């Protein structure tokens, strides 16, 4: 089935939030909004001065005193202010809001506000213990242990007896790995429109905008505005990409626009331009992961000891959950009886980090899969053999002691990836190529990994997701969920699922626009859960609709379903009419209660999770994957280029081949950028290269053909057997590319991005400027213990 909204997007007819004209309905022209931000990473606000040269009466000005409810953006910890009141914790933190009919007048006005901030000592490196005056979190514990300062969350996984296993090990391999931050670069920057409907105590704040999770935004508005759910309505507009960047971040934006609209009693449009979006929005958490691994003489894993540090930035946002997913994936898809994982996310005074596709797993899987290659190298083993020997088999358990018994042939995924990539042939060809080419080096690398779909542990139970499918009077059906389309294909896949389930043609299935006033809360559009979990609820709601119509689950064609829906409405209308005739109460026509099939989330039987000990069934299902990257490094410019990429995954069931392939290819491109070019220049904890000319995402010219293959082993609790795939492709490219570069150059890269500047230091670390005419380059084979030294000693402290 073709993408339903595809043509509108291709032809430019689709309307995004910046294309919308806020409804004015007699309330005057809509206003543009702008945000006045901190220029200091940490400090106390002393004063706010308004340049008298500007006529401020023409502006709507909002500060923290205008917030009717709590001055927090509702999320896990409720620690992030909507608008800073007396202190700031990061550069670009919002302090003041302005609105005005003219955008350029606004830009001038933003510069005419001077905020005087007394600086305090900031933290930009979470691997260095804070000085006492740098402690900003965790000071309220009376018996605070050393190392607890500024730690937002700590997690521990324990399995078996790690110390005993190390004592008996034939080999012990250490490694420390670092990953950089990453910006989502959704095509459409952040933006919302707020307006007020009605008057007085019954007025309703309506926020429309680009977002992944309308009910998160509604909850945040209710808390900050001190309003009941009935008086806050949130509508998702057509969204040009999210990648996690529109999971929690739009909540703050929505509150800002709503505060201005409430004060102005006029519609307010708050749209970030690209520069502001890059500077002020959340990004991927930087990470440092140390592995210490015990192996027997044959390369079998005896024990994995893993320490994880993530920089959370200035506020908690979703960091504890990002850490959680990182911790759970850190040991890789391998069998190991003894595992110890320690993870912590730590406050810094950088712009807060937040949700990003993969959600912690790409960071820890980078470390795991790079470390597997290091182990293979140190033990003289083939990297493929090492992984095969240790790969999870049915009946084995993961680091959290989750027994895997899904019947998937994980080894077959590796086989297909190697065959498609021509792994062994290419390795031989590269040896010949590298021996004769003066300036080019080629290599091939792989990553074997997994990704758990849906919320972690009991998360899905707490979400308590609900979905409805309405039968309409004309016989069509409408699917009502909060799942958002942001380019990944929700509308198309839900159409397919409902059409298949009810036997209807796709054009008889409508998908409701996510609007908190109309749709049930089916949970956020995150965590690779939409097709698998919400899609399954769509199927069950379709079944419920059949039940209500008196049709059995298998019985009856689509025609019968359509006829039954129409008949139900006709019958209903007759009953209404006759009851009106009987009562003769003046004929007040009540709108017909909709014919609704409904479904509510039920955990698959036997899923057990212990959140205290971090043990048990972390995810209902894992997708399994092997990615292979082939790279070419140009020794003139030290730049690496991916020249071939193979992505093979077992994902339960492919619901829509084109969309699934697109998800994988898009994720791989995003992974290539993260691995090779998307590096940050940080200044005072904020992004200095906040321009798309200087923050380098790949162009179509920079990526090779990405060859994708799927294997299917249906998951009984996913829609049509599907498992989640949205985040999976983000996990593999980083380590596969780094491993390929390691093979090409015989170096041992421990961090990404591997920009040309980084590779130069890795390949030729010593610049001998003194010798004017040296005859040979410095030796290439430099294993960079220096890279480890940067952070290794402090991790786990």
């Amino acid at each position: 089935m073709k993408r339903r909204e595809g043509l509108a997007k291709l032809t430019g007819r689709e309307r995004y939030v910046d294309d919308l004209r806020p409804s004015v309905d007699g309330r005057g022209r809509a206003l543009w909004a702008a945000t006045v931000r901190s220029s200091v990473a940490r400090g106390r606000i002393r004063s706010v001065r308004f340049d008298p040269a500007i006529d401020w009466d023409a502006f709507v000005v909002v500060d923290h005193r205008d917030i009717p409810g709590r001055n927090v953006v509702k999320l896990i910890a409720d620690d992030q202010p909507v608008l800073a009141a007396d202190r700031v914790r990061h550069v670009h933190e919002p302090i003041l809001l302005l609105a005005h009919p003219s955008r350029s007048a606004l830009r001038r006005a933003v510069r005419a506000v001077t905020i005087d901030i007394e600086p305090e000592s900031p933290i930009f490196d979470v691997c260095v213990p804070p000085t006492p005056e740098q402690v900003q979190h965790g000071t309220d514990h009376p018996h605070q242990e050393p190392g607890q300062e500024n730690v937002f969350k700590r997690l521990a996984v324990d399995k078996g007896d790690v110390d005993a296993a190390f004592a008996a090990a034939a080999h012990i391999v250490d490694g420390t790995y670092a990953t950089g931050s990453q910006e989502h670069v959704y095509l459409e920057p952040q933006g919302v429109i707020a307006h007020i409907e009605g008057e007085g105590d019954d007025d309703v704040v309506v926020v429309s905008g680009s977002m992944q999770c309308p009910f998160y935004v509604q909850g945040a508005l209710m808390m900050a505005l001190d309003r009941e759910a009935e008086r806050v309505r949130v509508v998702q507009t057509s969204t040009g990409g999210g990648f996690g960047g529109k999971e929690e971040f739009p909540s703050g934006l929505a509150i800002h626009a709503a505060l201005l609209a409430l004060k102005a009693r006029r519609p307010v449009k708050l749209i970030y331009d690209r520069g502001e979006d890059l500077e002020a929005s959340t990004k991927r958490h930087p990470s440092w992961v140390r592995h210490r691994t015990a192996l027997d003489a044959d390369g079998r894993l005896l024990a994995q000891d893993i320490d994880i540090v993530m920089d959370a930035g200035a506020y908690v946002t979703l960091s504890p959950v990002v850490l959680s997913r990182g911790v759970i994936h850190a040991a890789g898809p391998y069998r190991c009886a003894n595992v110890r994982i320690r993870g912590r996310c730590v406050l810094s005074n950088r712009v807060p980090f937040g949700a990003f596709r993969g959600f912690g797993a790409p960071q820890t899987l980078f470390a795991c899969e790079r470390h597997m290659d290091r182990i293979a190298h140190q033990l003289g083993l083939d990297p493929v053999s090492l992984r095969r020997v240790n790969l999870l088999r049915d009946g084995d358990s993961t680091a959290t002691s989750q027994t895997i018994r899904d019947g998937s042939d994980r080894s077959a995924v590796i086989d297909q990836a190697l065959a498609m990539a021509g792994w062994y042939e290419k390795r031989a060809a590269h040896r010949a190529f590298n021996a004769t080419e003066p300036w080019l080096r080629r290599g091939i690398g792989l990553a074997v990994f997994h990704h758990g779909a849906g919320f972690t542990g009991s998360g899905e139970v707490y979400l308590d997701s609900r979905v409805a499918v309405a039968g309409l009077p004309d016989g069509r059906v409408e699917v009502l969920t909060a799942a958002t389309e942001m380019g990944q294909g929700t509308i198309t896949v839900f159409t397919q699922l409902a059409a298949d389930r009810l036997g209807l043609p796709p054009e008889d299935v409508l998908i409701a626009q996510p609007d908190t006033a109309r749709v049930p809360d089916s949970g956020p559009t995150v965590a690779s859960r939409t097709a698998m979990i919400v899609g399954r609820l769509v199927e069950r709601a379709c079944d419920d609709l059949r039940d209500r119509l008196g049709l059995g689950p298998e019985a009856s064609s689509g025609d019968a379903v359509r006829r039954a829906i129409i008949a139900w409405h006709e019958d209903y209308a007759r009953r209404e009419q006759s009851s009106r005739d009987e009562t003769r109460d003046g004929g007040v026509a009540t709108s017909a209660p909709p014919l609704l099939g409904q479904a509510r989330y039920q955990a698959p039987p036997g899923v057990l999770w212990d959140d205290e000990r971090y043990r048990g069934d972390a995810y209902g299902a894992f997708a399994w994957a092997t990615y292979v990257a082939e790279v070419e490094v140009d020794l003139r410019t030290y730049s690496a280029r991916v020249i071939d990429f193979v992505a093979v995954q077992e994902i339960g069931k492919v619901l829509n081949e084109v969309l699934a392939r697109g998800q994988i290819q898009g994720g791989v491109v995003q992974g290539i950028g993260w691995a090779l070019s998307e590096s940050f220049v940080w200044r005072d904890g904020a992004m200095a290269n906040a321009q798309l000319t200087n923050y380098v995402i790949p162009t179509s010219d920079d990526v090779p053909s990405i060859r994708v293959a799927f294997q299917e082993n249906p998951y009984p609790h996913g829609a049509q057997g599907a498992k989640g795939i949205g985040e999976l492709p983000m996990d593999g490219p980083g380590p596969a590319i780094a491993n390929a570069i390691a093979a090409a150059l015989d170096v041992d890269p421990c961090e990404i991005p591997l920009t040309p500047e980084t590779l130069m230091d890795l390949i030729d670390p010593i610049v001998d400027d003194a010798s004017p005419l040296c005859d040979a380059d410095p030796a290439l084979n430099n294993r960079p213990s220096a890279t480890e030294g940067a952070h290794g000693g402090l991790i786990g402290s």
Partner: protein
Amino acid sequence: MKLLLPSALDEALDMLAASEAIPMAGGTDLMVHWPQNLDAHSRTYVDLSRIDALRGYRLGADELVLGGATTYWDVIEDAAVCEAFPMLARAARQVGAIQIQTRGTWAGNIVNASPAADGVPVLMAYDASLELVSTRGTEIVALADFYRGYKQMRRTHDQLIRAIRLPRRSYTIEHFEKVGARKAQAITKVGFALTRSEVGWRVVANSVAPTVCRCPAVEEVLTSERTVSAPEGLLPALDQDIAPIDDLRSTAAYRRRVLARVLYACLAPLCPGFGPSKTASPIPPLAGPDEPDR
């Protein structure tokens, strides 16, 4: 913003002479940060797009003359110009995407005076000279002498580039190289243009100094046919010619070393004095990985 719309060159020159107005051709540099660049909003601009005298170009027997409003695309599209001066099209293709190439002008690239300009190195390596015109008269300045420092040049505010003149020579070597952070839509981190003709070597580098610059010390290494056995052998000469810095896009160390390497890799097959041998790399070949196959 105030926009003046002269329809003839004299009219434009009068406007420039009478005010601090800024000439504007394709507008591509102005657009980059337009929403944020509030200072630029209050200035006066002189639009050059209606002036016939600046349009067009002429390939003669002795020289190529590019009018002051000639775009990159004009050159890309002209087979004869591409054949006579092949580096021009190669450089033009590296400027943004087609939309920019059809708007942006060679003269605009020169007077924007970015050290990373892609059009300027090839013009300079072809010994381009500029015909600067104002109400006070006409002046000819060699492009190689045009820049005085970062964004500083020998153009007074009332002068326009009426034409860029490139002498026709018989080139035995023409090479243009751009190192950016990606294959397209990139700003140069290191680059050079290099020619050899009857008047000798020209080596021009960009993004490694406050201006696009000739590299006379490197040219001297080539002219005197000195032996250079590895990329690092070019560094002493390069260090006299360039002054790279760390910025948002790269580091001074990277720029210096990579310029030496791309120059060396280009010259090694061309110059008898370069390299330990013609075919072998100065970098020792790697031993193959020793892991067993399966």
